[in-house]
């Protein structure tokens, strides 16, 4: 885990150096690059590519959720205490505010994470598929590899999970599904 995480960070640092700030990259690209980099020298330390992909997807989920949380915290005006940075300033904070966080097609990461945790309680396998596909950027085939199932199964699972999550995020699931009745 720390190894994958470090590699993701290192790659990200490369992106930060080279690209325009604020430009996002797809999880797929990042995870694949991390694998290519690690595979050369350290592939043996992983239980093959599938293991790596699973870890990478989990890392990405944690990173994105953590980031979304801290953004929210800044919006709320901070927690009980704040330690400052040398360069947080009004301009920066305002820039952070004005950044459109939910462009059309974007997902509220925190709501998704929460719904995904609920889905995992109901059906861990479905949740895992979502984690791999959405956060890890894996293709259906890669997900099937990781899960040890077939692409067809993954597709079926994906359709259900996606619909369930959308309902959950929009507030339609709590009463009927999550609670045993």
């Amino acid at each position, binding site marked *: 885990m*720390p190894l994958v*995480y*470090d590699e993701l*960070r*290192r*790659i*990200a*640092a490369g*992106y*930060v*150096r080279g690209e*325009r*700030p*604020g*430009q*996002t*990259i*797809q*999880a797929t690209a*990042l995870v694949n690059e991390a694998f290519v980099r690690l595979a050369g020298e350290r592939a043996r330390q992983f239980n093959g590519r599938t293991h790596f992909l699973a870890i990478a997807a989990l890392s990405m989920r944690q*990173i*994105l959720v*953590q*980031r979304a949380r*801290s953004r929210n915290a800044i919006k709320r005006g901070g*927690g009980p*205490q*704040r*330690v*400052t*940075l*040398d*360069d*947080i*300033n*009004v*301009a*920066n904070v305002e820039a952070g505010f004005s950044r459109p966080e939910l462009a059309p*097609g974007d*997902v509220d990461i925190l709501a998704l994470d929460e719904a995904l945790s609920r889905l995992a309680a*109901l*059906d861990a396998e479905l949740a895992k598929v979502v984690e791999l*596909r*959405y*956060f*890890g*950027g*894996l293709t259906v085939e890669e997900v099937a590899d990781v899960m040890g199932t077939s692409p067809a199964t993954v597709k079926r*699972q994906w*359709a*259900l999970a996606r*619909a*369930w999550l*959308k*309902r959950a995020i929009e507030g*339609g699931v709590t009463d*009927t*599904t*999550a609670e*045993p009745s």
Partner: protein
Amino acid sequence: MTPKQWERLKNVFQDALEQPAPARRAFIAERCADDVIVLREAEALLATHETAGTFLDEPARVDPADLETLVPGTVIGSYKVLDEIGRGGMGVVYLAEDTRLGRRVALKSLPSTLAMHPDMRQRLRREARAAATISHPAVAVVYALEEMGDHLFIASEFVHGETLREEIGRGPIAPERARAIALAIAGALAAAHEAGVIHRDLKPENVLIKPDGGVKVVDFGIAQIEGPEATRLTRAGSMLGTPAYMAPEQLLGQTVDGRADIYAWGIVFSEMLSGMHPLQRGPHGASLRRGVEGRGRTNDVHLTGPFATVIARCLHGDPASRYPNAKELISELESGLRPSLASGSGPSLGTGLGPDPGSVRSRFWWEFHEALTALVYSAMVVPAWYTRGQIGGWQGRTFFIALVATVVVATTARLHLWFTSRFYPRELEWVHQRSSRWIRIADWLFAATLIAGGILIGDEHSPLAIVLPSVAVGAVVAFLLIEPVTTRDAFKRSGIETSAV
């Protein structure tokens, strides 16, 4: 919904999707006729599915900068990350636990772009080493610079409290409290400058106010890594440092010393008092331009209200015209101002910097005493010359030399005090403290020499035999009884406890 129902729902839903779209609803109704819960849920999911559009189809996107984040629970060396507590272009600050010592620390992660640069690392190491030597209650202690692979962290004292920015955000701070905070910051700066560390980025965000009112200045010297090199290395577009608080010479990239911190201190102080940045009423850029253009002149800065003169001097475009060091700030705030504040001369203390009238009057008598004493002592050289002749021999010479020596010491020191009081009043306390003991010793020797001279003449009809001991007694009375009174009156008003000269 039971696990069994969920299994059933799954199968029904997934099977339904394999039917042609128009037939799905009927398919579900048929399969779930006996379980209304599963039926309703399956119908709802199908409806959602049909309107889901591209929901989640695109994998998550991530801002690469976000990957520099450490999630809580991550262990870095001997630190366990507990929470993220701040963030900016220069890195992320975490609350972490130092598992070796079992204490909480603020762990500042520096951007890996900087960390990977050898020169930058070297500079950071130097700066962290210097910062770690600062010892002052208002300075957050730097514990360590941790280098782990490509990652650089600065572990420092975790300060629980809010930032001065937050306090200013609630409106102007009362002058007496603002003064206390400004004094604490000045103390922190003085200690840092003594340790050879320039803050370089003092601003309300870097001043923390603890719940007990204590003040802590954080991030000493970390801004050192800023500069053209750092700007190039970190993400373009993210604002490094805070131009609004930077002295003109700093903005222009010239060599910076402690007086740049004095400048920032002036801005922060002014902002505390007025709730507003003194140089700007608009966006940050405006102040930046103004700061640079206003180099060497302060006329375009219109300051009013308490401490205006102090602040104006701090904000001088030319560093040489500012206070030379933070200690000066402290004595400035501690001396002339307290009486005028205490006497409640109100918020308009625009002229509050000069000594108040009371202290001027009392210091006059003290100055008068010093000057007069010096004059009388010097005048004694003339009778001493005649005494030398009357005594004669080596005794006469010794007497004369001893007297001149004590006179020179006592009068020089006194005239120096007088001169300081007239022309460098801010240095007076310091000079006074240093010289009072020597003056006292010279005084005693002076009196003793005069009495010895009177005895050595041995001729009771000589007027000098009377004059010398009389002057000696007079001098003793003056420095034992009169001088303490004028000294006390002159110095107690500036709040300095001194033993009388």
